[in-house]
């Protein structure tokens, strides 16, 4: 029987606000997995805490619903423990991913762990009812910045490119066709793939709305841009004349982390036989 999106269904129905960008991302993710013919038991997903990560309940699979901002470390370790899984996907929001858990992001980039890291970027802390996030615009008024946000926003894609990620793309929750395609590419990419997804928060972010994004985004694949140069990708990751590029910013093939670990050449760690262990060699130095 052919795999369908229904195979990824759980008994729990989404609790997101009507019109939330999370619906588009959720749809694209399941579509990408189905199109790649990956079955739910062949995928491991690691979520953090936030509106987006309540999605851990709405998708079937081996799901690690980790602490706020900590989706990446378990996902990386799942990759080290069992790289034979067909897909490993870590999902954070912009608050957890670029605030409390930013260090994990930068280090995952330079490790080239083979997983897809999706960040839901709605420029606001939504589950805590609307505070400025690391990607909130300067001047943005929120409950925690009633007189306007004084800080400059982080550019997640520029950070990923600088930190050494081997695949960096930007999507938009309102462009689910392109988003599905990017997710499929990101899952297939051998190495660390970062997909930052711009999305509106219809309840708490009245600045970056659907129409705000629609007026500004354009697709790189409709231009003559080639995603093969890290410096050019970095430049392209910044808004230019108010326009925001969507699509694949950068991609290169490098050895993954596990490619460089001889003990992972054959079996995955989880397949290693345990005991009895001969400690003679390890005890040699103690005589």
């Amino acid at each position: 029987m052919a795999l369908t999106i229904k195979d990824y269904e759980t008994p729990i129905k989404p609790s997101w606000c009507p019109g939330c960008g999370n619906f588009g991302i959720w749809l694209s993710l399941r579509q990408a997995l189905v199109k790649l013919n990956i079955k739910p038991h062949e995928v491991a997903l690691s979520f953090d805490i936030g509106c987006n990560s309540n999605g851990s309940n709405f998708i079937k699979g081996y799901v690690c619903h980790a602490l706020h901002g900590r989706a990446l470390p378990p996902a990386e370790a799942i990759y080290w423990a069992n790289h034979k899984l067909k897909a490993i996907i870590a999902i954070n929001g912009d608050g957890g991913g670029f605030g409390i858990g930013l260090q994990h992001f930068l280090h995952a980039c330079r490790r080239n762990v083979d997983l897809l890291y999706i960040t839901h970027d709605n420029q606001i802390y939504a589950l805590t009812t609307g505070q400025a996030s690391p990607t909130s615009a300067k001047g943005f008024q929120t409950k925690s910045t009633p007189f306007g946000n004084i800080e400059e926003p982080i550019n997640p894609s520029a950070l990923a490119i600088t930190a050494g990620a081997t695949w960096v793309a930007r999507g938009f929750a309102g462009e689910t066709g392109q988003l599905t395609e990017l997710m499929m590419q990101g899952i297939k990419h051998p190495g660390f793939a970062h997909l930052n997804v711009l999305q509106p928060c219809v309840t708490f972010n009245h600045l970056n709305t659907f129409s705000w994004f629609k007026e500004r985004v354009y697709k790189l694949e409709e231009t003559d841009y080639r995603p093969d140069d890290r410096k050019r990708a970095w430049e392209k990751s910044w808004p230019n004349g108010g326009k925001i590029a969507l699509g694949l910013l950068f991609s290169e093939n490098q050895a993954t982390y596990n490619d460089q670990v001889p003990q992972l050449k054959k079996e995955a760690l989880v397949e290693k036989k345990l005991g009895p262990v001969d400690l003679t060699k390890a005890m040699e130095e103690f005589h």
Partner: protein
Amino acid sequence: MKSGVNWKIGGPAGAGIMSVGHMFARACLRHGWQVFCYTEYPSLIRGGHNVYQIHASPKEIKSQKSQVEVLVALDQQTIIKNQAQLSQNGILLYDPVATTLAAKKPDRQYLEVPWGKMSQEICGSDLMKNTIALGASLALYQGDAIVLKKLIQEEFADKNQKIINDNLKAVEKGYQFIKKNAKIQMTWPALKKIRAKERILVSGNEAAGLGALAAGCKFYVAYPMTPATSILHFLAKYERDYDLLVKQAEDEIAVINMAIGAAFAGVRSMCATSGGGFALMNESLGFAGIAEIPLVVILSQRTGPATGLPTWTGQSELLYAINASHGEFLRVVMAPGDASETFWSMVNAFNLADKYQIPVIVLLDKYLSESPSSLETFDTKKVTIKRGEILTQAKLNKIKDYKRYQFTKSGISPRSLPGLAGGEHQANSDEHDEYGYSTEDAAIRQKMMDKRAAKLSGLVKELPQPKIYGSKNAALTIICWGSSKMPAVEALNDLKDVRVMHLQYLCPFPAQFIKKNVNPEKSIIIEGNQNGQLQQLIQQHTGLNIKKTLLKYDGRPFYPEEIVNAVNQLKR
């Protein structure tokens, strides 16, 4: 001081104090003697004051002593800081060019060894001073120079021939200098070769590493922090030989969450740290608790709070380990008393973590972690690996509606691992139902809490009881936990009608055993903290109020002599 070698060498960091100290300890081991080493060093790379102390004997020994009969002073600090430890008739070895003596005591012996000049003759620099002192020390104890020379050749095997030759010359020069010049009075038995069982010289951290390898740990992750760091060094060195992955992560929050991720995927995983790193791990410890992830965490204590005394010891994290993280969840806290127990407690830690799907905390401290001692080689045939209830594909195929957190009488629900069809589930940091889906339902919440807590009754039945050393029916009891067992048991040699009760498994607390076996009026608690944390625990769990304590929180371990004094005062 007729028991054997009590030797100490001191000098600035970077002068090779640790390496020659360890070499001398291994030389004693190769004479068939039993050895205990204690080191002190400041938190810096050059300068400061490093010491390496050895207690060796043909018979069993458990700890260092406070008195030494040979003190080797490579600098002035060693004399200033350690002279008081020199026993009657003890010998101070020093180079008068580098150090000066203010006043010589009539009942001590002073021996000038010009290792500065001798080193210049060998290599044109000061580099060989420590090795000359080593050769001189071996001669004082009338040890076998061939044993030491063989050790040097092994130790420097990967160095160039000149370095090997210089070191061999240095040993010989030091050795011959004593033979020719020393007119000293011997008050201790010679370091003669004896036939003995095969033993190895390992620290608590190395024993923990060996135990983890034997237990099938396949993923070790850490961030460097003294005194846990040498576990990382040891396992990293052997990751290819023993087919595991060793990872240094960006911080301790990543460390524990990686260990959790690997355990979720089905791999036996472990992390280690000291107090500061453990503090960063706290929130995630509760994640392992609520999501029922098997996890082994080593907490090697140092002197806190905050950065504290980074390279010194203490036992101030007992209550912390038992209570760390918000919310209530089951855990095991164990504190092995020596390197041998550390090895076996690692095996048990992995088995308990897997069987009960809980975090297990192994408490070490700088003293145990970094003090090498001689042990019989570990018999790995006695290692059993019990992975608990993990489903196979065949078993899963027979289950229609798999519930990862199924309510069971034992509280233990079978795990499925990523990759197995039909076993998909959510390991959830939110409270969850039997499938793992988030829920805030009051009844399910309460039932799930009760399910996790139900594991306690099975767990307490299989935890080993406290151990008693010395005469079972002795009038007085020394109660201790963790590494303080070593000097406490050593102290028994000089005490009559006294026994030691050592608590290795502290959470869940062995309340019944303590109630049955402790007379509070006839007991003294010995622990390395200010507030009497074991004293509090005993009172909390048994109502017994043990008023007599010997507490130490100056960063130093107990010395058996201090314990003997404290107990003798009680007897008066």
